[in-house]
């Protein structure tokens, strides 16, 4: 069953076409990878799905409901959460507060409720704090809960971004280069984390990644973009041997010389 469907998505920035007629279908509870050389339009593609950019044309359907045209916070409410290629944490806030912001859409507290400190609000707040802590435990950052986000190491910041995205309790999670800048050991941990959270949270994961080992290991479906267009799509083993993909990555000479 498909959860996310994209039809003929095109994005133009003036004369530059960042994405041209990209279509894809993402199965529920799967891990899909979007790969391609730098500048292929992968992040633009993510930005369109999450509502940061409005597509020039095309349709995005989440569970058969059109979501393009929505504002980013509404997209998040519909159940799409994401991490960023260049880490975007709330640097001056504590680690736990970062995760709490992720729960924003699920908190019902209103202006008056907060002012009067109603028991229901207090209970909700307490429950969300405990949940946030639980998520931190899950990604292995629980002992740093009161630390400022900017004081964490690079790998820890990446995991905090994932915890924050999970806090929104999404249906679809978009990870934009989650392993960038990680050492092999951290990448291995991350691979396990992605696989485990797919089961634990009943998630559909779409990721952009350059680390081919990670991509081949965890993805069930791969979409390859080059110059804004989809050039190939399929299972990892098929993509690995696809001449078009090899050409895109290594240049046209690579195939002839073998």
């Amino acid at each position, binding site marked *: 069953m498909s959860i996310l469907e994209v039809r003929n998505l095109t994005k133009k920035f003036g004369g530059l076409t960042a994405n041209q007629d990209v279509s894809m279908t993402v199965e529920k509870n799967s891990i899909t990878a979007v790969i391609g050389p730098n500048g292929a339009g992968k992040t633009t593609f993510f930005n369109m799905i*999450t509502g*940061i950019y409005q597509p020039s044309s095309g349709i995005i359907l989440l569970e058969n409901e059109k979501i393009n045209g929505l504002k*980013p*916070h509404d997209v*998040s*409410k519909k159940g799409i*959460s*994401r991490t*960023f290629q260049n880490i*975007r*944490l*709330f*640097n*001056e*806030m*504590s680690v*736990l*507060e970062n995760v*709490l*912001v992720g729960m*924003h*859409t699920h*908190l019902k*507290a209103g*202006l008056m409720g*907060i*002012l009067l*400190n109603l028991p229901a*609000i207090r209970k909700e*707040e307490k429950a969300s*704090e*405990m*949940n946030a*802590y*639980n*998520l931190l*435990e*899950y*990604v*292995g*950052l*629980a*002992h*740093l*809960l*009161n*630390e*400022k986000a900017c*004081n*964490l*190491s690079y790998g*820890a910041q990446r995991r905090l971004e994932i915890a*924050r*995205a999970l*806090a*929104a309790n999404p249906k679809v999670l978009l990870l934009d280069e989650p392993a960038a800048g990680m050492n092999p050991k951290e990448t291995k*941990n991350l691979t396990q*984390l992605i696989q*485990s959270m797919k089961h*634990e949270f009943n998630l559909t994961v779409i990721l952009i990644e350059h680390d081919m080992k990670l991509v081949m290991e965890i993805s069930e479906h791969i979409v390859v973009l080059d110059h804004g267009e989809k050039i190939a799509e399929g299972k990892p083993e098929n993509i690995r041997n696809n001449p078009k993909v090899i050409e895109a990555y290594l240049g046209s000479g690579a195939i002839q010389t073998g």
Partner: protein
Amino acid sequence: MTTLWKKYEQNKLAQGIFLLIYIGVTSLSLFTAQKSVTAFLLLLASLLLLYFTKFTNLTKWLLAGFVLVFLLPFTASNGDAYQSYMEVSTLVGIYIAMALGLNIVVGMAGLLDLGFVAFFAVGAYTYGIFATAQASNFMPFGTFPLSGESFWLFIIIGGLVAALFGILLGIPVLRVKGDYLAIVTLGFGEIIRIIFNNLDRPINITNGAMGISSVTPPRLFGIDFLYPSQFYYIVLVLLFFTIFTVRRFEHSKIGRSWKAVRENEIAAQAMGVPLVRTKLMAFAIGATFSGMMGVVFAAKQAFVDPTSFTLLESITILVMVVLGGMGSVPGVILGAAVMTILNLQVLTEMTNWLNQLSLSGIISIPYALSPAKMQRFIFGALLILFALYRPKGLLPAKNRIFIEKDLQGVNRKAKLVTTQEQSENEKL
């Protein structure tokens, strides 16, 4: 010496005794001295001392309440300077509430607003117009001035009108960011003042540059509020309300979304924080406190005119926030108190003292160099010093500390990575 200090830091009893002696000595000297600004300021400083003790929050609040509600007015009441002390305290309270409002906008939501005094003006004029005959120029019904009893209602109305102005200003203004926002808000602040300055034609609403005079004093149970010592209590109540509200918001969903927007707009949006609504809420709530205090200000001065709401006022409030510590509630309170007292007491006292010296022929200071004239210079110098040596303010903002034990024990997801392995090179 350092060990003694450490011991003192840990020992609640020692702190309590020291605080009591301190309060006792300062209040006694304030009570006996006919006019001693030093004693007055030192007694106020006891609140700062109290802040740094290890007492529980409730104890601190009760002690602070006792000092402000009973001790300060009582001990000050024994001298000739009673009303002038209370005047200063009242103004300190008004500025603290405004600085706390601006702190929401600048410190928490990160929106640099250089026209904040506009909301204060809106509050002041709201009461000023309806509490004088001014309103009968354009209101088709009702008799004006309204009675002094309506003041209490107008505190709320003034807050609401200011909030409305906050939203109306915010909708166009919040399309721009950062430095541009600062310039646009500066413009809007001036526009509001100029509108009030010119709104005596075609219908005389604000009485223009002449200002609105003899504003009806507030009245409660048949007693008119005429003196600063009476307004002191109104301000105190509103100030407690302001601090209480700001505290509530700070650690709630709303406060977190303000900070998230300040830290990273795109990430905040992706986490479901509606950008425009969150910013407007910061504008509106910040403006509310300012508007309420504007009403009090109008009633206290019994006179409203556009010159009270110049750009310098906006900048003064901003300096209070920056000096105290952006986003830090205790810091901003301290910053506002220090700035106001510096302005109203220390500088004028120094001027008086220097004048006396030059009168008796010891030194001669040209009039242009008197400290009271150097307010802007001193603001500027202070800001430079703070930017260099304490960029985060007097009492920098702190995140709430969560206690790990209280948060444990939910039905846990299996821990994926052992903490042992992680903690090796987690922290920089």
